[in-house]
């Protein structure tokens, strides 16, 4: 297992291509899934809605967190020590 991880670390592009092909496979398969029982309008009428939703959520969360940390929440580690 360790050797396998080392191989992947040296060949970063392999990880990337595997991930890309997985994403494409998942999205294409999802387009074929029946959405008529979904709860909301967006799920029924936007193809691949949850892909868009997942991607946007991640970006939004990362940027909110970074902005929040930069807005004075992140402090030096000895902040409470004096």
């Amino acid at each position, binding site marked *: 297992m360790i050797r396998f991880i080392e191989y992947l670390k040296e060949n970063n592009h392999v990880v990337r291509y595997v991930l890309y092909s997985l994403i494409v496979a998942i999205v294409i398969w999802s387009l074929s899934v029946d959405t008529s029982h979904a709860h*909301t309008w967006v799920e029924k009428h936007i193809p691949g809605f949850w892909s868009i939703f997942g991607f946007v*959520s991640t*970006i939004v969360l*990362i940027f909110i967190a970074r902005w929040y940390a930069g807005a004075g*929440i992140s402090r030096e580690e000895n902040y409470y020590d004096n």
Partner: protein
Amino acid sequence: MTTSCFFHPALILIIGAVFLPFIKAPFRKPYLMAVPILTFINVVYLGFNPGVYGQVDFLDWQLTFGRIDNLSNVFAFIMALMAIIGTLYGLHVKDGWQHMAAWFYVAGSLGAIYSGDYLSLFLFWELMAFASTFLIWFNKDEKDSTAAGFRYLLVHTFGGLLLLMGFVLRYQATGSIAFELLDYENAKLYTWLIMAGLMLNAAVVPLHSWLPDAYSKATITGAVFMCAFTTKTAIYTLARACAGFDILIVLGVAMAIYGIIYAIIENDIRRLLGWEIISQVGYMVAGVGIGTALAINGTAAHAFAHILYKGLLFMGAGAIIHMTGKKTFTNLGGLYKKMPVTMLFMIIGGVSVSALPFFSGFISKSIIIAASYEAHVIWAGMLLTMVSAGTFLVAGLRLPYLLFFGESRCDQSTLDKAADPPWNMQFAMLISGLLCFIIGTFYPILYALLPYQDIAFYQPYSAYHLSETLQILALTALGFMLFKNRIGARATINLDLDWLYRRGGMMFLWLAKNPVQWLDTMWGEAYRVVGLFSLMTTARFWGWFDWHAIDGLLDGSARGVRSFGRLLARILQRGQIQQTLGYTVSFVALLMIAFIWL
């Protein structure tokens, strides 16, 4: 007066803890395992015999120590199971006090779950708070642990007082101390007080700051216990008393988002996991707020799954801290070569919390989301789904990436020390890892334990749910790959609402030290000069007269009492408030045994 076949499981742990110091090797390790296993067997036995047991008349009230029904069963079952796993994980710990504190803590949790009235709930509630404080104080490696323990204790005392005020006011208004569903339509002040007291233990925003603070300072095994019991016991009590309170949906979703944002920027492993507890408990609080049968089932299922995978993550984090002595991402990284077994289990924990198909989060978290759609609270379902993307980002990707893959930020001595932990820690991780997988794959096992069995069963492995989850996970991974450097390791701490009492406390201390102390000194000086001298002279004369003349007549009994008092004080009061508290808690526990038994 107890029913003949009822023996309270908490009693096994309390008695076991009291006798633990007298058990020496080679019997110590078997004994350590036997006590929680016996407790577990007792809980399972009670699970097959539902009913109301252990009713005791105390003054004007009837206390109920054993309310065994569907809701209390599933929570007691997982707590007792976690007690076994946690004790196994800490089997190598030589310090018997840590085991005792942990068992008292679990006893408090089981007692709270089985109690049918507010008074006994309150007793066990406080037992939990006190016992778990010791799990923080016993951490000798952390210089801040004493202060953190006091902060934890004070916050929980405050929460306990809210609960106490609430149920006393309720008793005054209704004449009942029965612990049952509160009336939301005619909510009074006491309803809100009880809810706030329970909410504090569930770490609901804004009463949450104690959690990451305390769990990152506790002992390694202590944190494994703490991550399971306090918040999930509170979820049980909320499900019992506050099911269907709309406001909890808002609060639950808020804490799910708040927790995940802090987890994204956190640098300390156990603080990150603590923030994620807040986020995950947010799902459960929202589930309680929705309050339908499906939602309560989802809450119970998610609490069950959560205890196992979060315990697993804390065990993995503890293994890393135990072996390397480092606890921040900025001092770790690239550990895959040194700790492959730990890595495997932490990834299992991470994908379980991220709801990857075949792991436990997949079949539990989705019930709550489905319940929110079914109850037409669409916004809550959407926001909780967004948080599950964040959960995968944090626990499934960021955590393993920063610890095991990525670049190594360890110094040479850390790398030399790093290795997989002792067998018992690995074994405990193996058990919970397997359970995460078994529950996720053979989900009817868990669903059969849920409180409402008469509703239509939720089907997690539908094509639609699979496609939804896989799309979110895959695209989250893409987002992580693109932006992983923005959420890398940074040597910072993040301020939270505990700033108010940590900095506020310092202000108070300054006030006490400077102006108030000055005034006090001045006053004392004036008093000494004017009043004390004459008073002391007279007192000295009468003291001499009493000691020599009167006590001499009465066979020196005062002297005897005084020397006995000194002896007692030498043993009991060593000036360490922690020890004094320890004696007090043990005394209360003994009293409780007496009450339940008689």
